[in-house]
């Protein structure tokens, strides 16, 4: 029983980090119908930026979050203006190809700048944990989960309490309607893409402490993130949180009870099952275009 509870605790904490990473992916899809296959690569880029701030200037990853977030926001904006906007509204396959191309370019740049050896930020809280009776809570994951909750709350505030946020939601629900009431959908899309990438500033900072990473690590992340948003429902922020917790706990339960070879299969199994049982995901809604002609 202790093993089960401990595994669920660890899984929930890791799930919170996954939620932070998946929130931007689902936001970008919700507004632009762009499946950003470069999302994992942007996360690894944020991790490398955090590592650089830590190794060169001694800046703790938590302190680095605002800096990396701003940089990632700017990079997101530039990438949108430079490439993604050309395929917004095009067939989804086109945006997938462009996003994959961006991921490859980012991987190449990261390999060129930082090399292909594993990096990790050795923060003082990396090997520490809080002991509660027979259970423990790892400090780095707890901090990461706290950051995830704060960022997700901030994201919710932006989306529901600001004009830009309302414009994003309007554009995601009905682009034509948003245009009719004076929303500049192009600007909103750029802002949403930049926010989606900006959230990775916090996520990248946290994963730089929790997981060693190389430029090619993004393939593993994007598979997991896609599974999360498919499970939660593409475009649904709350769905992404639920999906992330399920995947996080699912991976650890699979390791503990089935075998250490199984976690890698969990995201793909989830995608497979969701597509069969509930294609719109837990919190997604079926659209007219989902109907079979």
């Amino acid at each position, binding site marked *: 029983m*202790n*093993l089960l509870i*401990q*595994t669920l605790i*660890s*899984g929930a904490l*890791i799930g919170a980090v996954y939620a932070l990473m998946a929130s931007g992916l689902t936001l970008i899809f919700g507004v632009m119908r762009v499946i950003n296959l470069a999302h994992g690569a942007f996360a690894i880029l944020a991790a490398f930026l955090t590592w650089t701030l830590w190794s060169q200037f001694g800046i703790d990853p938590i302190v680095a979050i605002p800096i990396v977030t701003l940089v990632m926001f700017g990079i997101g904006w530039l990438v949108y203006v430079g*490439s993604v906007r*050309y*395929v917004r*509204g*095009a*067939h989804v396959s*086109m*945006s997938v*190809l*462009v996003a994959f*191309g*961006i991921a*490859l*370019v980012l*991987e*190449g*740049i990261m*390999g*060129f700048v930082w*090399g*292909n*050896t*594993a990096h*990790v930020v*050795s923060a003082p809280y*990396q*090997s*520490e*944990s809080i*002991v509660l009776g027979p259970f*423990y809570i*790892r*400090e780095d994951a707890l901090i990461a989960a706290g950051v995830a909750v704060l960022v997700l709350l901030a994201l919710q505030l932006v989306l529901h309490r600001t004009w830009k946020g309302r414009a994003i939601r309007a554009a995601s629900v009905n682009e034509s309607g948003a245009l009719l009431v004076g929303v500049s959908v192009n600007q909103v899309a750029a802002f949403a893409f930049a926010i989606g990438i900006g959230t990775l500033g916090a996520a990248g900072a946290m994963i730089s402490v*929790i*997981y*060693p990473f*190389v430029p*090619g690590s993004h393939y*593993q992340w994007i598979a997991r993130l896609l599974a999360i948003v498919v499970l939660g429902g593409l475009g649904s922020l709350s769905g992404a949180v639920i999906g992330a917790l399920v995947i996080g706990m699912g*991976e*650890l*339960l699979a*390791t*503990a009870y089935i*075998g*250490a*070879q199984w*976690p*890698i299969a969990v995201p793909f199994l989830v995608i497979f099952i969701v597509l069969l049982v509930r294609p719109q995901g837990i919190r997604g809604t079926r659209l007219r275009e989902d109907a079979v002609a």
Partner: protein
Amino acid sequence: MRSSVLFRGAAMVIATATAALALAGCSADNTGGGADDALTIGASLPLTGEFSQGGLDTQQGYEVWEALTNEAGGLLGRDVEIIVRDDATNQNTVVTNYNALIDEDQVDLLLGTQSSLLNIPGSAVAEQAGMLYICPSCGSPDMYNRGFEYIFFSQQALAAAQADVFAAWVAALPEDQRPATAAYPTLDDPFARPVIEGAEKILSAAGIETVYQDVYPATTKNFDAIVNAIVDSGAEMVVQGSQFEDGVNMVLSMDRAGLQPEIFYQSSSPSYGEQYIEGVGGADAAEGVMFSVSYHVDAETDGNEEFVAKYKELFGGDVPPEDAADGFAAGQVLAAAVEAVGSTDDQAALAEWLHDNEVDTILGPLSWNADGSPTGAFLIGQWQGGESEIVLPEDAATSDSVLRWRGAAF
């Protein structure tokens, strides 16, 4: 309008793909040039990807051997030139690289790549071409049951026997000090798994109960669930088959879970020296970790003093990493065979000479069975006071005591 969007999108895809290929090309081209009459030696190495740490270290070992050999007048009176191609830790690329080295570069000799995983396809290409293949890191038993004639492993023992000395020592401990149960997590790697399987066989035969045994893939980054399961199993000793990252992550997860067995063995990770110490959080965290090792910086072996001096001159640092030493030893083995035979034309003669003779290297004297597997035994190292010491076997020990993990001496 629609076609315009599609056109621009397609152009973007082509542009990004082109840029990616250009960047990939920049980072992968490691082919060097050299004198026209040089003796060329080709090797594929994982300079990028999962095994890049070991690959880069091995490359350093090759380069030190190349430099010292040329300073001493070369091989058969000719300078040696090592041509290295990056295989990016990809088995398919290993095959492509060795074919290119043989057919396009037309190298005179071959050296192996890093890890059994990559040497399995690499050695097959060499065997097909009838070329001698000295590999510095190919300890999987699976490599030596294929009837190959040209492969030689230039370390002391195969993976299955690497932990034998350690396991025999544990089995011989007095009953009140010997653990009753053990956990065996291991990386799914042909170099790591046999080490742990070999140790488990000896330890279970000695009456130490196996309470946890699992194999994790190379992509595993989070060891919390594995450690939780080990804690739940009540294991009194942990014996892990590890490469590098996974070993470091295991220690961090064990720290967080408060798992502190008296005996903690990892097959390879701790031999990565300072990188390991830094990864696990300092010398105190590594204190008492035991590991199999092929090399020690203070060993009084053939050429070791020159190797260490040249390594420091070329790459700095105090202690050459084990993979660099293994790479250097591979060069020594190759040179011994070539000098003895007097030519590189008859590669079968080179292989025959190695089958019949013993070669002195910085790892100690090496000799081989008919299948190319070595006949010796590995050293067992332990981190003590921030230094990597040899603790077993006793006649090769550089320290008088064997420590518990972060504890007192046995």
